[in-house]
């Protein structure tokens, strides 16, 4: 499995994501600069956190017009697995690959600490190594993680089981329905504010993020075997 980590001017979690893929999946991983317009070589794509284009205007609003984003939309349509973390989640929202939008944290503070999440959906390619309703510890670090969508969209998210993570006991940003991460209806695009790539070793404070990466690899191997045997 070949994984791409997209890099925009202002991305700052790209190295963490790259290392996380190396150390958890042990698969080939490449940085892909924002001006590339072809992602056909990759099976999975990670959009890392940071402050792409300085977060000017709105978080992710300028990044969504980068050349690599057309290739990303195409990859999403082809069913490739796309994981957007923090600023990556904001970019996916701005690009319309996930529904809703991000507002400033309710208390206007940059929130940076370990958060406890509930795994609401362990049926996705990103979360199958977790138990349903398992509580996991993954750090957050954001000033604009207050996920918003209108009531109709929220009902649709619920109906199609698209809410993947919720904040378990303390909602750090005021997000609708305590949402921390959602996926698209097809389940191949996931966006989340917490940083699983910062939770891959016990000495980092938690190793609970590892299983996101191992879930993806497991799904890829299962998919690959099916293709070979069919």
């Amino acid at each position, binding site marked *: 499995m070949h994984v791409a980590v997209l890099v925009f001017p202002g991305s700052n979690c790209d190295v963490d994501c790259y290392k996380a893929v190396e150390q958890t999946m042990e698969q080939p991983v490449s940085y892909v600069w924002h001006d590339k317009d072809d992602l056909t070589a990759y099976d999975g794509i990670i959009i890392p956190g940071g402050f792409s284009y300085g977060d000017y205007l709105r978080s992710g609003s300028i990044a969504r017009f980068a050349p690599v984003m057309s290739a990303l939309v195409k990859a999403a349509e082809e069913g490739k697995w796309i994981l957007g973390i923090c600023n990556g989640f904001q970019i996916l929202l701005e690009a319309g690959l996930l529904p*809703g*939008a991000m*507002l400033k944290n309710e208390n206007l503070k940059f929130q940076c600490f370990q958060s406890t999440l509930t795994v609401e959906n362990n049926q996705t390619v990103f979360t199958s190594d977790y138990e349903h309703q398992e509580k996991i510890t993954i750090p957050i670090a954001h000033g604009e993680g207050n996920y*918003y969508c209108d009531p109709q969209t929220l009902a649709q998210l619920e109906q199609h089981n698209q809410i993947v993570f919720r904040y378990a006991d303390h909602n750090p940003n005021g997000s609708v329905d305590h949402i921390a991460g959602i996926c698209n209806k097809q389940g191949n695009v996931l966006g989340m504010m917490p940083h699983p790539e910062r939770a891959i070793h016990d000495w980092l404070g938690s190793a609970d993020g590892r299983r996101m990466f191992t879930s993806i690899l497991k799904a890829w191997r299962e998919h690959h075997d099916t293709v070979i045997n069919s």
Partner: protein
Amino acid sequence: MINARVYVTIKQSVLDPQGNAVQNSLHSMGFKEVEKVRVGKFLEIKLDTVDRQEAEKRVRDMCEQLLANTVIEDYRFELEGL
């Protein structure tokens, strides 16, 4: 030359944490008559065109595609010149 003045604000139905913070501050300063504050963005755009109708269409497209996120924000604009 046409100048566009674009205003982008958080929708009335959406919580505006910045607006609330400013409102609370004004209240604590004694401006008790303040009922509501909404914080938004103001953009001035100079357009190299003389066609007002075309300018209106183009600025609307700019707002829809980039300047506002219509999931959470409203926009309005004025054109000046010619």
